[in-house]
Structures are given as structure tokens and as C-alpha cells.
């Protein structure tokens, strides 16, 4: 049965005629009654993107975002009914979408917003609590990176751009490359500016080695890293955990 293929094609391509075998129910052509589906699909998926990428939308403006989303949803409809995951292909789409070629940081902003959403829905885990531990005991711990912790790397100042568009009191973005650590101590993901060596430390900690080993290896790779500041950031922001609590 091929009816649903031709129906899908016609829904996603407004220039194509409605499929055959349909009518208005009164013996006449289906006409704009078919457009109800075309409209529902594009409007509902556009709304899903508007919800998922608020900073991106603010950066390009509502009207441009809607038009861009219309192109994207027709080219890349969701692959799953879980719309919370929708937009994985948006960074790649933006990177090759000529109208935004002059805004090369947009794909990384989209990746940051995808990361925040992924973190929001990730499994719960109690943040590592080092209170009461002496330094040797703390450094011997072999914590896990919490399921809601993510790193987003960029050649652009995406942390400053994100802050300037979410906090009106924040300064305007300046400077070059910025990496971001996303953590979610309880329910609300937060991005943190990740200083030099942070990406390396996060990668090493995924290997479930002790904090002492991870710090030493980070310093070996990046001698200029401020390792104690990095470790404080990872612990204070709730990036690490000792236990994973899955559903």
C-alpha cells in the first residue's frame, strides 16, 4: 500500500498536488481541506523548534526563525515521536544554510540548546558531596560524570552570546573560543564557562579514574590549566556523582 507515501510527500511539499482518491466529502475536489494537514504538520513542528531553541530564535528574530523552521521541518522531519529530541540535525542545517552564512556561531548555539534539553531530560543523580572529607580521601574518589553533565566546545564566544540573550544585565559578547560545561544539580540545567583544561578533565573523568589521577593527567596535557579552580567548578556545579539512579 503506497497511499501513505504519497500522502506524506504531498504534506511535506506544498507545491505538489494533493494525492488522488481524496474528496471534500460532497463529491468535489479535496482542495484546501488537504492543506489542514500540511499546516498542522509545519506549524506544530515549528512550535517544537521554537520551544527548543529560544536563544537561537532571539538571535535571528521570530519571523526569520519561522521561515527557517519551515524549510528545516520539511527537509528533516523528526525521526522519533519524542519531540524533546527534535532538532539534532539543526546545527548541520544551519552550517550550510546560505541566509545565515554570516552568523557562523549559530550552529554552536543550536548545539548548546540541544545540550541543555538533553541535560533537562537526563537521568537523576545525586551530586558528589565532598563535605567532611579530608583532601587525600577526596582525591582518592573515583566519581562518575553525572548523566545530565555535558560539554559543548566552540570556536566562538557562545557562553557570552548565550548569557547576553538570556540575562539582560549580562555584558555583550567579546573574545574568541569558549567551551561550556552544562550541569544539572537538581532539575534546571545551567551552562558554565569552562576554563582551559576543562574539556580534557571532563574526558578523563569519564574513564572513572581517581580525582588525583585525572588532575595529574590534565596538567600533563595542559600545564597552564588552573587545576584546583577546575576541580572546584566540577564539584560545586554538580557535574560529578558517585551513584547513578536510573528509572
Amino acid at each position: 500500500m503506497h497511499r501513505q507515501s504519497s500522502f506524506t510527500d504531498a504534506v511535506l511539499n506544498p507545491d505538489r498536488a494533493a494525492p488522488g482518491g481524496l474528496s471534500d466529502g460532497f463529491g468535489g475536489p479535496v482542495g484546501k481541506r488537504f492543506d489542514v494537514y500540511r499546516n498542522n504538520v509545519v506549524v506544530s513542528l515549528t512550535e517544537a523548534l521554537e520551544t527548543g531553541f529560544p536563544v537561537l530564535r532571539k538571535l535571528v528574530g521570530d519571523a526569520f526563525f519561522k521561515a527557517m523552521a519551515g524549510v528545516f521541518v520539511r527537509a528533516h522531519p523528526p525521526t522519533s515521536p519524542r519531540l524533546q529530541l527534535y532538532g539534532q540535525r539543526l546545527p548541520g542545517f544551519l552550517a550550510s544554510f546560505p541566509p545565515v552564512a554570516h552568523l557562523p556561531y549559530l550552529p554552536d548555539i543550536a548545539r548548546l540548546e540541544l545540550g541543555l534539553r538533553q541535560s533537562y531530560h537526563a537521568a537523576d543523580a545525586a551530586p558528589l558531596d565532598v563535605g567532611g572529607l579530608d583532601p587525600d580521601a577526596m582525591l582518592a574518589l573515583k566519581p562518575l560524570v553525572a548523566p545530565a553533565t555535558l560539554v559543548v566546545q566552540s570556536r566562538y564566544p557562545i557562553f557570552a552570546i548565550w548569557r547576553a540573550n538570556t540575562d539582560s544585565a549580562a555584558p555583550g559578547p567579546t573574545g574568541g573560543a569558549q567551551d561550556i560545561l552544562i550541569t544539572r544539580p537538581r532539575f534546571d540545567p545551567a551552562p558554565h564557562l569552562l576554563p582551559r583544561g576543562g574539556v580534557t578533565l571532563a574526558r578523563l573523568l569519564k574513564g572513572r579514574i581517581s580525582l588525583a589521577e585525572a588532575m595529574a593527567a590534565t596538567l600533563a596535557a595542559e600545564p597552564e590549566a588552573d587545576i584546583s579552580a577546575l576541580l572546584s567548578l566540577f564539584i560545586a556545579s554538580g557535574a560529578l556523582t558517585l551513584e547513578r539512579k536510573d528509572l
Partner: protein
Amino acid sequence: MRDMSVPSSLPHAAGIGYKSRHYADLVADPGPVGWLEIHAENYMGDGGRPIAQLRALAERFPISVHGVGLSIGGDRPLDRDHLGRLRRLCDWLDPASFSEHLAWSTHDTGYLNDLLPLPYTDATLARVAAHIGQVQDVLGRRMLLENPSTYLAFDETTMEEVDFLSELARRTGCGLLLDINNVFVSATNQGTDARAYIDAFPLSQVGEVHLGGHDEDVDDTGRPLLIDSHGCAVVDPVWALYRYTIAQSGPRPTLIEWDTDVPAFATLRAEAARADAILSPVTA
């Protein structure tokens, strides 16, 4: 396995579609709201606030899980991963009801996030019945199937929608979810009699009723074209059709659906109270 003889174990009271922005209001004073419905696909993450809120609400309210993405009418096999996620949700939540739509939404190209229509033929009947059987086997529970809003007609259709749904219920043992707004929308759009549809509907199989708002448009010939939107209040003719239905069926768990332009909780509570007033004289 639960008792498969009752269409659902929701209370015969008014419920609302749950929106996270109403969490604090609901916990403080639910008023006549006796149960909640959630969209299954919004609670398939691993954790975080959505799951925590749902766990807390499930301790206070009976929950109905309403799927919007299973594509039960699809002409290809059901997505086993998605079915597995539904089973995990139903296993930990143990909802009072699970329901889905007589529609399709996924094809090779992807998931279209709309409830797309089906021709009512023997071939469609066989395919949908097989899919419902598979869902009920995997979930280990009886499901409810919802009647759609229709905007157009298929030349190949050979059966009335009511007969199609009745036969599905008979073949699979599934219950039915009767969306009164969808009945009104479809009857208006197709120029048929909404009360005749209710008269012919197998009301004994109805485990839940939906009420929602629609938008008004006209087609190319100037005929009314109503569009199911869940974005405004239930209109008076739909309330009248609801009263007509309940007088025949007896009380049924009744949901107020409001999914876009979501209002303050007080507005939903007032709609729920209106449904409750129609249900209560029947209950008493």
C-alpha cells in the same frame, strides 16, 4: 494482568490534560479535577523535572496515559522501540488507562506530529486490529482507541466510521475513547448528523470521553471547515452533544483538552466544573 473487562479504571469524573505550568495550582487546590491525562511522549526521558512531577502527581491523582505518536494506523510495522518505551512508562506508572488514536503519523520520511487520516476498508481494519492486538499484548493491558477529527473523504472507504470502530473493539477487545468535539467537527465537515453518530456508537465500550475546542474556517466552496485545535474553550453545541451522549451512556471519565494557547488553571477548572455538573446528576 489487570481486569480486561472494564474499559478503564478512571473515576467517572472530570479530568484535565496536564500542563507543567499548572503543577503548583493543581497541588494547592484541584477543585473538581479528579484525574489527569498526560501525553506519553513527553514522559519518555530518563529523569529530571517531568518524571519527578509525574511521580508526585501520580500519588494524588489517577493518571491516564494518552499516546500521540504510536501511528497505530500506519501501513508499516509499529515502532518496537517506541512500544518498548510505552511499556516502560506504563510499567512504572501503572496508569488507570492507556489510549491512542485511530490515525497514523509516521512514515519512512519520519514522524509528522499530526493525526493523519485513514480510509475505512477491510484492509485498514485488518491492519489496525493487528496493531491494537500487538499493543495490548506488549503493554499487558486493554487500550482505548479514539475517534478522529476528519477533514476530507477517501474514495476507497467502504465502511462508516462508527461501524469501523465497533468492529475494531469487537475483534481486539479494546475499549473506545469518544471525543465529542471530534464527532462534532467531523459531522460538520462531512455534512452528517452528529447525534446519529452518537446513537450508532457502541457506548458500552466507551472508557473515556474527550471535550476540547476547535477553530472555524471554510473550505473552497464556502462550506464550514472546523479544525480540531485544542486551543480554546468547548463551544455550546459540543456541550449539548456531550449532555446528549451522557444521558445515553451514563457517567464516563471526561477530559478537558487544551493543548495550545494554554490558559490559567482557573479556566480549566471552570471547564472541568461544567463537565462535572453534567456528570453529577447522572451519578447521583
